[in-house]
């Protein structure tokens, strides 16, 4: 099981959701996710003319034990995937994963009782994300 952590960050870089799937201390992933926000900002600022602006941002940066991938929606919500360094997942698989993750996010935000840009506390979302993560890449 190579997925170590998943995070959803709001428009003002506020954390909305963070789920870890590894035995490592959770704080380590908070740090990794926080650091990746700078990389995302850089990637998003780079606007080259005529290039199609994808939501999938690709590999953000590698660390010693992990690889960090990013994705940003049109509503400026960022999604971050942290997988173990040894994973052989291809770009296409990760892109596909993010699409599924985005759909789960859409479901939870469409709930009229969910306040946009607030912490996601839905247990249904958490368990759906867990099953998606356990399926692996």
């Amino acid at each position: 099981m190579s997925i170590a952590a998943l995070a959803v960050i709001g428009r003002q870089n506020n954390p909305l959701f963070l789920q870890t799937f590894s035995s490592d201390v959770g704080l380590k992933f908070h740090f990794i996710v926080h650091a990746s926000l700078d990389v995302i900002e850089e990637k998003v600022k780079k606007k080259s003319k005529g290039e199609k602006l994808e939501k999938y941002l690709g590999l953000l940066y590698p660390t010693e034990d992990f690889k960090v991938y990013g994705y940003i929606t049109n509503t400026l919500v960022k999604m971050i995937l942290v997988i173990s360094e040894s994973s052989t997942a291809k770009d296409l698989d990760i892109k596909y994963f993010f699409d599924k993750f985005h759909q789960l996010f859409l479901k939870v935000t469409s709930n009229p009782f969910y306040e946009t840009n607030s912490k996601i506390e839905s247990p249904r979302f958490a368990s759906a994300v867990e099953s998606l993560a356990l399926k692996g890449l």
Partner: protein
Amino acid sequence: CCSPVMTTTQRQRFVAESCFDYLNLVMADTIFETSERSEVAISKMELLGFRVGQKLIEKYTLDKLRFGEKIDIIKFICREFWTTLFQKQVDSLRTNRKGVYVLSDNKFHWITSLSAENAAKTKQLAEKYLVFPCGLIKGALDVLGVPCSVKAEITTVPQCTFTITLKPGQ
């Protein structure tokens, strides 16, 4: 009224839209009737529209590539967003290039069927039904990263304009 040659999907859509149209009118009426002052009603309705607009955009932009420029976002509102909500595109878009956009709709769906004794009275009564759409646009733009204020004006029912003023610093 109900054409006998509709397909099932068309009929379902017709029923759904009619239900929504009536609900929308009653919602506006109720909020205005149960608020102490019209300003309170207006801010309530705008907030409602704002919240709904935010959530709708998440859905409508799910499969779209990211927007490049602000004008692309405004165009999206004028085309896809307007079509999904109001069954047609905005008829004209003007801008002063300094953060003000004016969207004109010659036959705004939500006020098309309203009528009172005369044109002036109709216009006065129809104004309250434009607050929610203003909120929708405001919420939609806010969540796309373009905070703004939106005001609507009726020329003669069913023609109206929505003026979007971007917050300074945009």
